């Protein structure tokens, strides 16, 4: 039954792909319209943020800046993608209220356009970071060819959860604020700034259960050590991505038609 619904959604979305393309374009263009540097901000912003963090924490942890910077950057790429997608998906339907109430469009276009827009940003800032990582002495290796697969799995994992939050926020507006705080907490439970091995005790157990781990590692192995992630890591990632998509899609098809009445 789910598969039939899924096919229907794919057909609807492909019928409206030009609208999807326009919505993604709108998202990318608008953010930095009328700023002097324009789209370049998308690349510079995370770079500057990460550089500040790298300097502060390499001093704090007494680690060599170069090594730490590469380690941090590799973890920040998937985390930033995940974080922005989840936080922004909360307003997917709410900010398009006027449109949804006046004209029929497949509802999945709105969260999908947000996820795709952020994915494009993420891939571009990945290339900018890659240059820096290589300049700082990161390894260039064939393992980097795994990164597209990592992005793909990360996209599906994130999109499933984003679907849930985009729907839930329509029914409980409080969610927008809760998500921001929850994501901050989750950030500290995700080994982005630190290495899992540095932890001990109860926190280590919590961190080990974090489903984002394998996605961070899929980026970190190729970028930091130039090796492919282990089969176990990839299996976990595929499993979590699949669970997330199934749950997200299920919540979506159950509520898709109620959205317009609750905006």
């Amino acid at each position: 039954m789910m598969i039939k619904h899924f096919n229907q959604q794919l057909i609807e979305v492909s019928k409206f792909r030009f609208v999807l393309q326009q919505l993604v374009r709108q998202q990318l263009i608008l953010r930095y319209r009328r700023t002097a540097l324009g789209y370049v901000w998308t690349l510079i912003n995370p770079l500057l943020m990460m550089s500040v963090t790298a300097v502060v924490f390499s001093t704090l942890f007494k680690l060599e800046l170069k090594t730490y910077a590469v380690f941090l950057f590799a973890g920040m790429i998937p985390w930033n993608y995940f974080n922005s997608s989840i936080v922004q998906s909360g307003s997917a339907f709410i900010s398009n209220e006027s449109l949804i109430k006046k004209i029929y469009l497949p509802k999945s276009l709105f969260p999908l356009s947000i996820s795709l827009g952020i994915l494009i940003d993420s891939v571009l800032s990945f290339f900018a970071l890659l240059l820096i990582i290589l300049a700082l002495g990161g390894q260039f290796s064939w393992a980097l060819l795994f990164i597209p697969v990592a992005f793909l799995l990360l996209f599906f994992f994130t999109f499933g959860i984003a679907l849930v939050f985009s729907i839930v926020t329509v029914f409980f507006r409080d969610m927008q604020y809760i998500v921001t705080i929850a994501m901050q907490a989750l950030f500290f439970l995700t080994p982005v700034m630190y290495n899992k091995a540095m932890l001990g005790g109860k926190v280590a157990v919590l961190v080990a259960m974090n489903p984002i781990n394998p996605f961070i590692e899929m980026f970190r192995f190729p970028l930091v050590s130039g090796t492919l992630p282990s089969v176990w890591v990839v299996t976990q990632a595929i499993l979590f991505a699949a669970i997330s998509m199934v749950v997200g899609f299920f919540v979506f098809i159950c509520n898709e038609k109620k959205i317009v009445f609750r905006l």
Partner: protein
Amino acid sequence: MSSITVNNLSIKFRIYHDRSPSIKDYISSFFKAHQKSGYEDFFAVNNISFEIKQGERVGIVGHNGAGKSSLLKTLCQVYEPSLGSVVVDGRVAPLLEIGAGFHPEFTGRENIYLNGAILGYNKDQLQQLESEIIAFSELEDFIDTPVKYYSTGMYLRLAFSLATAVQPEILILDEMFAGGDAAFIKKATDRMSQIVDQAKIMILVSHDTKKLRTFCNRVIWMDHGQIKEDGEANAVIDHYLQSGKK
């Protein structure tokens, strides 16, 4: 052959007594299961059926809250029927509110593509139509300016030119629209009547009974979500107007 078939259609709204329910209410309602619920159901459209065949020009009248707009939105697929079914055969032009999808930060030209996509035009169509739309709206000098700097008239001119650029099979209108200065209103009214003439089916909701008499050959009178009368335009409008005088 275009046609519209509506069968036992009902549209249900849930009215909340105080405010949008928060998570707190939701959780607390688990513990107080027997408490009176904070909402009630309201039928904006209550079990109506009708059929519209090719060539018909249908007007819909009724007092505020009679369910006219809810019915139109269901025909345009914005609302899903709560009960019953709606079958629409033919390309619908949803002209409920022109300019609804405009983004204020985008230029006129960018909005032609963004809003055009939303209205169902494809890329090739829009590339072909672009110059015609700009010419009709008389906005050649401002087309690359963000629409937030447009006057209301300019905004309406662009929205109107875009929305009416392609002849639809089924035309669904919530009030006739035409805006701008006197010369543009003339031009817009002409194009509007041309589109109405060539549409295979037209549905028009309006409070202006004169317009309904001119444009429609059949009128549906709605009252409290139900059809009170459905028939020849002049007869139904006469009855509707008489009921208002009493």
